[in-house]
């Protein structure tokens, strides 16, 4: 019986995430699965979807690409924050020897998954990629959670030069992974899906799509096949 659908809280800490992004730690306590997201409301401006980097306290990683992300970039400790969620279907925690493949801002939900899986005692392998060193996100969080962390950049400015999918393929070829979790641009996800089929390993991937309601009614987020990214996903089996 609260007048508003949003939970209100405050920013506790803002850390840089790559050259341009920020990680925002709040005082909002949620209980969520990795891969779920929130609709973040900027009063009098807009409301947009963001994956969780952590649920308790709610932590987001934001890469500036437009008005809302630009404003989130400017947040200071003490500033208010309004979120609706957690929403959507998250990752399973079924991987016993999981391989996480994160490209670009896809790093956010997989960082949450990595720490959840590590906390459950799983040996987590991560392939983390970006265009350049400055776009790598949440490296420390992955370092803390992963048993093995492989970093790639397209320009070679950090880690191996190349695509994160190539690393993933190598790791799958070596065997020892029983489930792949992926998040990143759609072409990357398609390549990961092909690898999963090739190596006979089940995979899950988190997708993005333009969202309005976030709760499966407005029809804005059809993945193209009639599945709703906000409700049937954002995590889908590959």
């Amino acid at each position, binding site marked *: 019986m609260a007048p*508003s659908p949003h939970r209100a809280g405050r920013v506790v800490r803002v850390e840089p995430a790559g050259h341009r992004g920020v990680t925002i730690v709040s005082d909002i306590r949620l209980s969520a699965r990795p891969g779920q997201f929130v609709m973040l409301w900027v009063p009098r*401006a807009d409301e*947009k979807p963001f994956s969780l980097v952590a649920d308790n306290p709610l932590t987001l990683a934001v890469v500036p690409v437009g008005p809302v992300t630009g404003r989130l970039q400017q947040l200071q400790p003490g500033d*208010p924050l309004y979120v609706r969620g957690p929403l959507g279907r998250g990752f399973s925690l079924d991987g016993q020897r999981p391989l996480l493949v994160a490209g670009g801002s896809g790093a956010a939900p997989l960082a949450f998954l990595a720490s959840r899986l590590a906390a459950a005692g799983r040996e987590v392998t991560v392939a983390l990629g970006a265009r350049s060193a400055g776009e790598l996100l949440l490296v420390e969080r992955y370092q803390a959670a992963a048993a093995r962390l492989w970093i790639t950049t397209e320009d070679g400015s950090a880690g191996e030069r190349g695509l994160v999918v190539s690393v993933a393929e190598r790791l799958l070829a070596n065997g020892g992974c029983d489930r792949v979790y992926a998040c990143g641009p759609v072409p990357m996800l398609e390549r990961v899906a092909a690898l999963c089929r090739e190596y006979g390993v089940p995979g899950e991937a988190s997708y993005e799509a333009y969202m*309005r309601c976030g709760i*499966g*009614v407005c029809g804005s987020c059809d993945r193209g096949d*009639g599945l709703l990214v906000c409700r049937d996903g954002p995590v889908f089996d590959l």
Partner: protein
Amino acid sequence: MRDVGLSVELCGVRLRTPFVLAAGVLGTTAALLERVARRGAGAVTAKSCSVRPRRGHPNPTVLPWEGGLINAVGLANPGAAAMVAILADTRRRLAPLGVPLIASVFAEEAGGFGEVVRILEEAEPDFYEVNISCPNVAEELGLPFAADPVQAARATAAVRAATRRPVIVKLSPNVADICAVGRAVVDAGADALAAINTLGPGMLIDIRARTPVLANRVGGLSGPAVRPVAVRCVYDLSRAVAVPIIGMGGVTTGEDAVEMIMAGATAVGVGSAFYQRGMGVLEAMAAEIRAFMQEQGFGCVSEMRGLAHGA
């Protein structure tokens, strides 16, 4: 146990179930419309469309609250030309399923309704639904046509002149006398009515942000909170006019659907219940309606129609 049939007839068109996907809910793409049809819809309605594309309002545009949903999508749509492609694709997908398609049309002034229908004719939808009752664009366009019988009739007549397909006119509950509007649009050529569009409008204020939550400030209410108003509108309309009514507003269970039918509805629209119960909602409601009909000894849906009016 006697087997019960769920099919109904609407303007001579057979619907496998009495459930009609309400306009604006999940009706944006052919793939989604097909999916809802496969999951138990008797007919599906595509998102309301206007001649030119509309971006709609900024987000938040749809929010859950304790009584259901509140929305001010602002009639976002890709415009009639793009909608022709969506409708034609949808028709192809629906044909093998035997699920008819309703195209919902909207215009900024009464004459414009004819224009959008003339464009959509190419896609050959099974029905047109005339949305004269959207409460979410008042700031831009003033009170909806459905607030005034004369305006409502004018929009209806424009559609009537543009097509020979059956025309459903969708009414607003936000008027002092819905029957006056219903009679006016039937006189202007409506073959059926849909009632109700969203109620209100309403407003949610976030007391910490100290501002209305919807970007449009106000939005239409739907879901369980509006059901008694919808039932009353259908009950009153079914005495006032002789055409069939698609009853909608808060229908969430099979028993809610029965209530609408007993109030006088021929078919039952379902929108917000996709939020509460997900993609399986129509299948669940079909099972619930069947259980009720078996318990009470009804053989087909039309036996229940209008029963609440007494002998």
